[in-house]
């Protein structure tokens, strides 16, 4: 019988069962969503729930790191560190956040030993190609331009469940696929097209839609 030390109990699967705690359901995908906007958190949370994902939504990179047990003071196990072994299948984070940006969070996750294999997806309202490239190079699995739609999240779910396949691909192949995925968003049609056509965009928006990805996204939804 293990010692009654508080430090050891959350870590071993046999301890979890022994204490009568339910093991994490391996069928249910658990997503950690990070966004400082309350509106966006509510929307992304709902989108993921609609796709039967378990969601934990936090409002900052710091809170995300805390949850993952990756804050500096948590590197040494302590009584308060109950989150070692937290099962997270995907992390989706906003890019522009006060304090720690999504990019910085991405780097911290990829540097960790516990979560470096966990796919990280970046969301941003600005589709700046150098930013997208930088995130992909740092190991981001995908990049979603806001506002986030159901089709975006559906696409994420698809490759979350083929973890084994992803693991066999080389880093280069993965990046190639991700970039194609970004350009392919125009091929993913919405579940039902809007019955009302939207009015033409004012010219003030033209600089925003200059990037090819945004142009493709707009074309798709016309």
């Amino acid at each position, binding site marked *: 019988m293990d010692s009654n030390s508080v430090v050891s109990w959350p870590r071993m699967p046999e301890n979890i069962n022994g204490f009568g705690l339910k093991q994490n359901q391996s069928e249910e995908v658990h997503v950690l969503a990070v966004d400082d906007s309350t509106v*966006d958190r509510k929307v992304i949370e*709902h989108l993921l729930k609609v796709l039967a994902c378990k969601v934990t939504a936090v409002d900052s990179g710091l809170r995300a790191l805390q949850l993952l047990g990756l804050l500096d003071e948590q590197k040494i196990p302590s009584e308060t560190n109950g989150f070692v072994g937290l099962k997270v299948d995907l992390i989706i984070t906003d890019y522009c956040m006060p304090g720690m940006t999504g990019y910085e969070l991405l780097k911290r996750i990829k540097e960790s030993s516990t979560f470096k294999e966990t796919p990280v997806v970046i969301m941003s309202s600005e589709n700046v190609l150098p930013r997208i490239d930088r995130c992909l190079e740092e190991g981001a699995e995908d990049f979603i331009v806001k506002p986030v*739609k159901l089709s975006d999240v559906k696409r994420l779910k698809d490759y979350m469940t083929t973890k084994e396949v992803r693991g066999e691909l080389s880093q280069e192949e993965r990046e190639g696929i991700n970039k194609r995925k970004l350009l392919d968003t125009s091929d993913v049609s919405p579940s039902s097209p*809007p019955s*009302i056509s939207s009015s033409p965009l004012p010219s003030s928006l033209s600089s925003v839609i200059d990037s090819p990805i945004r142009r493709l996204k707009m074309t798709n939804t016309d």
Partner: protein
Amino acid sequence: MLGLGADLLWADMNRLLAFLFHQGVLDEQFLQLQQLQDETSPNFVSEVVNIYFHESEKLLRNLRALLMEKEFSDYKKMGIHLNQFVGSSSSIGAKRVRNVCVAFRAATEQNNRAGCLRALEMLEHEYCYLKNKLHELFQVK
């Protein structure tokens, strides 16, 4: 059984929605949110919209307070508020409000105080209009 009254109300709502789309007040992202609403989450859209109203009114108060300062010069802070406003407006499909925020943001980048004041007036007006229309929409439901 749905009576004639309910059918008329339904037609009214669709007409109002169609009008708002035609005017560019709302875009397809609003439809996207509506599609996410179902029996398990029957109030999803109004919940999101209420969060949006709450956040927006805070942002508008902050923007006005910043601009009314005697020794105003914090364009950067205004820009940060506007980034948030652009983001949340785009997330609920509030197209016209979003566009005014973008123009407002441009004025802050140019340190153009007069332009900012004009943009704030326009933003408050657009936001009020949107809020009234959305309240109408939810009442009909």
